[in-house]
């Protein structure tokens, strides 16, 4: 059964959707969508390093994305530059460096489209293990820090005053995002991972009136996008990432008719 690439892709997609739902909600709540993009852009450098030094691609993406995340946290404390400017700075510098290094590696055959948009054909059993094991760790850590993370999302100072450690949970959350990007890049591609993170959550927001409900609906939205998206990408022969994200967009548009504007 694991020989069938479509089946492997489905298992991988389910694993990713289970993680993007809860993590994506926090990305939306904390206004971090652009931050997701920054981490994803820096993943290109991770991919290139992985090819040049022949190390595991997820590991190398995780290392580079975490590094960029930590540099960001550091810069936030040392400069007065606005958040979006800092993100733009990091996002494009890591992208530029990645492309520059790629230029030196012209002798290597390298499928950049697969990295940008995801490639279901490339998902092997090893990747499945990385996705599910990594995903389980991410969800477990998120469950551990849920309360302080949520409290500091609602009000940072209130959480800190009442004995939580928002700075630490923020840093942990950032690392979790980097880890998610590392495990999902093969499937969704680095250009579209932010879409996978926030679109099901945006849909879920339209249908929910409390945080837990929004998380559950985000997961369901993500799963639906993966099921329908993968089937469509197989039938009409398109890249998996764009197809999944397009399905998510369609779900979002459908959810607009049920929007709870009142809240």
């Amino acid at each position, binding site marked *: 059964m694991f020989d069938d690439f479509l089946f492997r892709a489905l298992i991988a997609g389910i694993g990713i959707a289970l993680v993007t739902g809860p993590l994506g909600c926090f990305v939306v*709540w904390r206004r971090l969508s652009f931050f997701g993009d920054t981490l994803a852009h820096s993943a290109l450098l991770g991919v290139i390093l992985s090819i040049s030094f022949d190390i595991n691609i997820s590991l190398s993406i995780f290392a580079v994305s975490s590094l960029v995340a930590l540099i960001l946290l550091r810069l936030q404390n040392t400069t007065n530059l606005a958040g979006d400017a800092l993100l733009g700075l990091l996002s494009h510098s890591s992208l530029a460096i990645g492309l520059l290094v790629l230029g030196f590696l012209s002798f290597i055959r390298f499928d950049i489209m697969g990295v940008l948009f995801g490639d279901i054909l490339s998902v092997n059993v090893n990747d499945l293990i990385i996705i599910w094991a990594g995903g389980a760790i991410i969800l477990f850590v998120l469950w551990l820090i849920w309360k302080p993370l949520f409290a500091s999302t*609602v009000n940072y100072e209130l959480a800190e005053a009442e004995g939580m450690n928002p700075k630490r949970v923020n840093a942990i959350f950032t690392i979790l995002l980097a880890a998610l990007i590392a495990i999902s890049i093969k499937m969704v591609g680095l250009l579209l991972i932010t879409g996978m993170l926030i679109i099901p959550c945006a849909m879920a927001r339209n249908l929910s009136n409390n945080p837990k409900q929004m998380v559950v609906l985000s997961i369901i939205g993500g799963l639906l996008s993966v099921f329908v998206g993968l089937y469509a990408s197989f039938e009409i022969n398109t890249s998996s990432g764009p197809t999944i994200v397009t399905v998510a967009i369609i779900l979002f548009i459908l959810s607009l008719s049920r929007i709870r504007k009142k809240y």
Partner: protein
Amino acid sequence: MIDNDLLVKVSDAGLYKDGKWLVKGVNLNITKGKIVTLIGPNGSGKTTTAKIALGLYKNIEGTVERLTNKISYVPQKVSIDWTLPVRVIDFMVLTQDLRDQEINDALNLTGVEHLKNNNLRELSGGEFQRVLLARAIAKKPDLLVLDEPVQGVDFTGEVELYALIKKISETLQCGILLISHDLHVVMSATDYVVCLNGHVCCSGTPLAVAQNKEYKELFGEKSSHLLSLYEHEHDHVHDSDGNIIKEAK
């Protein structure tokens, strides 16, 4: 001297930020069962002082000792983004685990039990303040820091809530640090007043502060009368240092 009832001791504290002192040379003690009120004009450093006491700033002058971890905080402003759907009942357990009964009791005390399942964004300003206060008292803290807790609450509600705050300090024996602009209502319930204007301009019992020259300059002669008026309602006698000599019932 170490006081068993001491909860927070702020010694000669100050905060220097962006080229100026937001507040400087603050000394204050918060003890169990007592209400300390910070008054002062806008920009005089009231909120900054409260945050210093809470330990929210890292680079302060002076020292802050906190002898309790059971702290509740009602910030001056809490804004909830539309993207974040939070009901009152979710908000109540934000930093604490509570039983249903405890949630109901606290909401009942501030008069907003009927709003339990409403989304925070549906509440009016006054209702939201009542929810903030309910959340803060629900976990029965040792220290309660209230930054303008009754803003936007109607007048009768304001009197009620101040009476509630007074009652909480007595029943829970918790120390309260209160920031308020409503001199006339607050003073009747306060044990100790710190008048700020970038520094501690004066401090002491409401009566002592009301008669202070700097206080009169800051708030005008009229408010001094206002403050002393309420002294008549006090049920105890102070010595010259502001210590309570005896409860005169």
